């Protein structure tokens, strides 16, 4: 093979870093090979791994295509679109619950817990199962362990959503070296920097989120000028619109509301998604559903479809205009437009983008894959393999602290290039005060209650002194992942000031650690369980064969002693059959195999002699 002559010595020493697009609907893993970024296929050659996780009746957790199959069979043990719940509290997801069949477990406030069968999962744990599937696919394909990754997130994700994504990586056994914004990743994949310097707009309409980013390209530097978006807008909204209409149709045609029937709704969801996708290529199609002997069939033209979704498409244009304004640019100044996300296949979306930016959008790369490919390029940058490119991204939301009267004092403004920092000096208000509590929020509104609460930081163990004398400098630093880091220093002593962090939404570090441990144990349990099951299948095969052999003359040709030995071996196998130790089962199988050797020989001989007899006749 020619590959023997092309040993990549650098690759042998350096661990591979993969790029992962953890999407609302589908996820992908890609890596950088010598020719460029490549999507890594799964064992069946599939490039997209559905972001679906299901808990089977036997308790095993499956992700991807196997889980997709179970979505219809056991909708109450299966979860999809979990990205919409990342970094959310229970009070945030009322709307979500109306549209998706999620069952929320009791006792979750700052973190949503989903009930699947008799187990509960947080959204990062669900995502970790998808990530683990991608990790396995990559390891099988590359033939070496994969422990480091770049994962993409919507540009408009807040701190808690980013942290939740990073937690998911950790739980899956991946060191997340960088979170990259999806539109920025897409621009990297397009390699537009090779052509010329200029300004590009990336319009990213995915399954559940919408992002718009405007970047300036300058000699390989991708500098994001502004970003905007809506973390609650995407193809799911289009699907739900069509489902709603179909449900009303069915109600009037069949005289029954199947909206409460999860299985029926899942079938209908599949049907409308198929119709939606077809309408990107043909002018007319049908929504078809067959359920419990009844059939629903409705013709849908592209014209009507476009009327139905016009307001959803229109909702993306507001953030686009805001983004242009924040970048200080007019539409004419945009040189190139890039489309990302499956929903940009819809002709109406392409038309709207072209009209707004007055530029024909790029569609050369598969909109489903372009983000993962970009993540792989960023992985290449981190690995030092790609040296001519550099991403300079921004924070999508302003960071502030709550001051007197609940008013927000902004410290780091949105669209600031990250890493970015700000320092504030805090003091005490009462004599002998030992603690100062700082409430950090994210958002553009004036009042803290209208912004997203990020965390409360407790400056602890302040030396007691008269009010106003303490001087504690707090540094707020948003890192290259868009995640906030806080450190504090006592200005009088110069010593590090201890800070306690209570995140408003999401998991504490201890909780994530516990989940990592549990996932290792569970993963081991899962593997042991699978091995035992496989051994039992083998045992079944040999026991069935023995059953048949006992009907054969060859059985009678054995001595009593030989027959007793075989029966003893069979009993031994039956005794360990239900053990979860696959080695024990396999030992007994092997033993039975050995003692039935002569029986098998006898059977073979008689078969051969029978066959020979046959030829003589």
């Amino acid at each position, binding site marked *: 093979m020619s590959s023997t002559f092309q040993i990549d010595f650098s690759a042998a020493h350096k661990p591979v870093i993969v790029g992962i697009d953890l999407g609302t609907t589908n996820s992908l893993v890609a890596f950088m090979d010598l020719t460029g970024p490549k999507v890594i296929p799964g064992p069946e050659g599939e490039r997209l791994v559905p972001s679906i996780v299901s808990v089977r009746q036997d308790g095993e957790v499956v992700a991807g295509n196997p889980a997709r199959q179970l979505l219809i069979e056991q909708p109450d043990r299966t979860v999809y679109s979990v990205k919409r719940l990342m970094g959310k509290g229970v009070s945030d997801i009322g709307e979500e619950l109306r549209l998706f069949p999620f069952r929320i477990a009791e006792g979750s406030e700052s973190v949503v817990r989903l009930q699947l069968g008799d187990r509960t999962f947080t959204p990062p744990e669900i995502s970790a199962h998808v990530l683990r599937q991608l990790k396995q696919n990559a390891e099988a394909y590359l033939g070496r362990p994969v422990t480091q990754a770049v994962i993409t997130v919507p540009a408009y994700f807040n701190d808690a959503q980013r942290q939740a994504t990073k937690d998911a990586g950790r739980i899956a056994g991946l060191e997340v070296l960088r979170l990259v914004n999806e539109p920025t990743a897409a621009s990297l994949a397009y390699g537009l920097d090779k052509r010329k310097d200029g300004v590009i707009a990336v319009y990213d309409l995915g399954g559940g989120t919408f992002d718009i980013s405007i970047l300036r390209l300058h000699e390989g530097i991708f500098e994001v000028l502004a970003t905007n978006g809506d973390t609650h807008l995407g193809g799911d909204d289009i699907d739900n619109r069509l489902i709603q209409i179909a449900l009303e149709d069915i109600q009037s045609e069949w005289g029954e509301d199947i909206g409460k029937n999860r299985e029926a709704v899942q079938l209908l969801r599949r049907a409308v998604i198929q119709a939606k996708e077809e309408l990107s290529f043909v002018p007319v199609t049908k929504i078809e559903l067959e359920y419990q002997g009844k059939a629903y069939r409705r013709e849908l033209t592209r014209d009507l479809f476009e009327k139905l979704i016009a307001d959803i498409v229109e909702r993306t244009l507001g953030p686009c205009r805001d983004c242009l304004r924040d970048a200080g640019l007019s539409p004419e100044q945009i040189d190139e437009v890039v489309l990302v996300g499956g929903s940009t296949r819809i002709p109406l979306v392409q038309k709207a983008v072209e009209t707004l930016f007055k530029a024909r959008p790029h569609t050369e790369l598969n909109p489903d894959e372009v983000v993962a490919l970009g993540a792989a390029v960023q992985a290449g940058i981190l690995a030092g393999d790609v040296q001519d490119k550099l991403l300079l991204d921004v924070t999508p939301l302003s960071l502030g602290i709550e001051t007197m009267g609940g008013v927000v004092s902004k410290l780091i403004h949105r669209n600031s290039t*990250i890493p970015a920092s700000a320092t504030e000096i805090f003091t005490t208000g009462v004599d002998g005060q030992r603690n100062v509590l700082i409430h950090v929020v994210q958002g553009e509104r004036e009042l803290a209650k209208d912004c997203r609460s990020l965390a409360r930081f407790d400056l602890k163990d302040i030396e007691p002194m008269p009010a106003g004398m303490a001087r504690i400098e707090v540094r707020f630093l948003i890192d290259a992942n868009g995640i906030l880091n806080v450190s504090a220093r006592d200005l009088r002593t110069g010593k590090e000031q201890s800070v306690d962090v209570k995140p408003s939404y999401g998991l504490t570090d201890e909780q994530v650690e516990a989940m990592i441990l549990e996932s290792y144990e569970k993963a081991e349990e899962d593997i042991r369980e699978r091995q035992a099951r496989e051994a039992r299948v083998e045992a079944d095969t040999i026991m069935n064969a023995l059953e048949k052999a006992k009907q054969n003359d060859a059985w009678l040709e054995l001595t009593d002693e030989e027959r007793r030995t075989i029966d003893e071996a069979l009993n031994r196998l039956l005794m360990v059959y239900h053990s979860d130790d696959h080695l024990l089962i396999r030992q007994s199988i092997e033993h039975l195999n050995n003692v039935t050797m002569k029986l098998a020989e006898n059977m073979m001989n008689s078969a051969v002699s029978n066959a020979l007899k046959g030829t003589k006749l």
Partner: protein
Amino acid sequence: MEGTRCWQCGQPTAGALFCPSCNHLQQPTSDYYKFFGLPQKLNLDPGDLQKRFYSLSRQLHPDRFTRSTPTERQYSLEATAILNDGYRVLRDPVSRAEYVLRQRGFDVGEQRSKDVPPELLEEVFELNMALEELKVGDESAREQLEESRARFRSMRDEVDSQLQQLFVRYDESADQDSANAILQEIRGVLNRRRYIRNLVDQVERELAA
């Protein structure tokens, strides 16, 4: 900075970002001008500043230090934050002047709305009247507001050119005392400018509504 030694090899660094002996990244200075290698001038060439920003980004960004030691990774994060913060402050003439004022010990607080610069009192009074009229539906006030907007905008332009002249004088000032006197003047002009900008914003908001 000049007396500092490399944390890695102990050789003197002469304040450089990277140790001249072993090339390890050093703890960065937090002075924006020093960081960009620029003298503390109020007039800066935006093109030159951008070039320095890009070049420093290429050298310092955390992407370049993924496989480095934790110390260097931390320094890279801090240095890039200072680089980005500094670029934001220095590329805008107003925030740049405010930064220099603060560095020189001047207090640059947000002006209270009550403190109307005396020469603007009459203008502001008329403006408030017009705003009130527009609110109760008197469309004839719109014309007056448009006039106000034009006047405030020309005032802002005037203030900007005034600032520009002061910047030149500051950059050419021979000694600390005269420089401080000019900074004092700049501080006054900046307050006036902030007030006028708020007025322009207010009028524009009302006209757009």
